[in-house]
């Protein structure tokens, strides 16, 4: 961990227009919860639907994408990463610091609003609020790691990330059950299901698969990013 790098990364994420997108997504989630409350649809099933399709299914990958690629991709795009890499700081430490920044952003902008939205709908009933907040936190951390790795690997990180989140987790996952095993969203839902006792919510992936998978993916992505930064070559903008 390196405080200066963390500070720079926070400023890059919060100081620019990126912050509006980071605020907009959770705001819409909380607004939806309030709206559903107002029209009197605030029951357990609605809460689970909103959490599954919106909080975990839409907001989490998007926030992961914005924060995960946002900590490193703009610097690579600008070429200013070279100033960072030229300093006598170990490259894996740079990767770990940037990952920690992205993960903390997801805790703040994904896990907290998820809890608030679920609380607005059903209070603490059946542990839905705690479960989905924990799921969003763990899933968000994994997304942050994976999308940071993508940002280091390719300049088209955001597009490829979207294709993964939309096409693989969304479309392919719906038709090919096996694809669901390799989806961060599904792992996050397994964690949420473990905490929540709601009868409207069940998942197929067992905890015994989801937890090791999340750990391996997160740690693996951070380590790989560090390794990749060690032998990083800057190519010119097209």
């Amino acid at each position, binding site marked *: 961990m390196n405080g200066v790098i963390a500070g720079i990364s926070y400023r890059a994420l919060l100081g*620019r*227009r*990126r912050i509006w*997108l980071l605020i*907009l*997504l959770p705001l*819409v989630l909380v607004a*939806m919860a309030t709206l*559903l409350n107002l*029209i*009197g*649809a605030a029951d357990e*099933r*609605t809460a689970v*639907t*909103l959490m599954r*399709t*919106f909080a975990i*299914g*839409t907001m989490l990958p*998007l926030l992961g*994408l*914005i924060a995960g*690629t*946002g900590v490193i*991709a*703009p610097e690579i*795009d600008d070429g200013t990463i070279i100033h960072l890499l030229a300093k006598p700081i170990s490259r894996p430490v740079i990767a770990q610091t940037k990952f920690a920044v992205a993960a903390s952003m997801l805790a703040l902008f994904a896990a907290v609003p998820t809890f608030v939205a679920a609380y607005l709908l059903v209070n603490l009933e059946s542990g839905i609020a705690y479960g989905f907040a924990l799921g969003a936190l763990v899933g968000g951390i994994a997304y942050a790691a994976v999308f940071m790795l993508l*940002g280091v690997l390719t300049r*088209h*990180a*955001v*597009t490829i990330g*979207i*294709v993964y989140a*939309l*096409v693989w987790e*969304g*479309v392919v996952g719906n038709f090919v059950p096996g694809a669901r095993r390799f989806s961060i969203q599904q792992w996050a839902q397994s964690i949420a299901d473990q905490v929540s006792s709601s009868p409207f919510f069940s998942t197929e992936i067992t905890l015994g698969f989801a937890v090791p998978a999340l750990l391996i993916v997160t740690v693996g992505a951070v380590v790989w990013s560090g390794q990749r930064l060690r032998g990083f070559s800057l190519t010119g903008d*097209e």
Partner: protein
Amino acid sequence: MSEPTGVIHDIGYRHYDGARLGRGHATAALAVHSLRGIFGLGRTARSKIIPFVLVGVMLLPAVVSIAIMALIKQEGMRYTEYAVIMQAVLAIFLASQSPYAVAPDLRFRVLPLYLSRPVTLWDYVGAKLAAMTAAMFLLLAVPLTVLFVGEVVIDLPGDTHTVEYLTSMAGAAGYALLLACLGIAVASFTPRRGLGVASVIALYLLASAVSTVLFGVLESMGDDAAAAWAWLINPFFVVDAAVHVGIFGATPASNVIYPPGAGSLVAGVIMIALIGLSVTALIARYRKAASR
């Protein structure tokens, strides 16, 4: 008579004496250049991968439909449903390619250079919008046309769906115009490509998720009239309701019921309002960018 000293040598610089093609040609050239850039033509091989893979994915259902028609003699996909079914691909294409059309010029602050030529601000914005509209139209019209040609060649018993095909082509123009305006307007707010891609896709996903959740909840509450309105939050269904159903009286995409009566009219108004809003935002954005 002495030899002249201090001669300025004539090294052959010449004035341009040819015809000056003027503003229209400059705008057209900019539009064509942008259109080529959107598909990665004239750029590196790597930047051709994503657009052409997406074009390939768009063609996939048409090819599968033709195969179904040829092999098991059943009707394939409905023309007017094509865009709604493939909306994720269209949205990804819009999100990944519209920042390419606008971000580099903003990032390198070359707008004053463009505007020092006969091209005006409206021409510039119009050229970019025209390029993106043409790209989205091609992305949708080519698979539809392939499907139609396939249907004509296979010639199943029963009528050829010529009217449906033409309706879907008009719809494709509507989709292209609305999506291009929205995509370019959102993408132009950031000079960063990655953030532009994320913003466009975030807005699409937000609209689509809000519409799905609201529809599901309202329908489960038994409020079908309100549930029907929830579809109109998603821009893809707005165009389907306005152009396909409203103007040409086609049947809506499957599983979808639009609000009866004023629904199509409201969809049309939403569509026009969104286009107007996007263009206004774009002009305001570029006024600011040009003055820097």
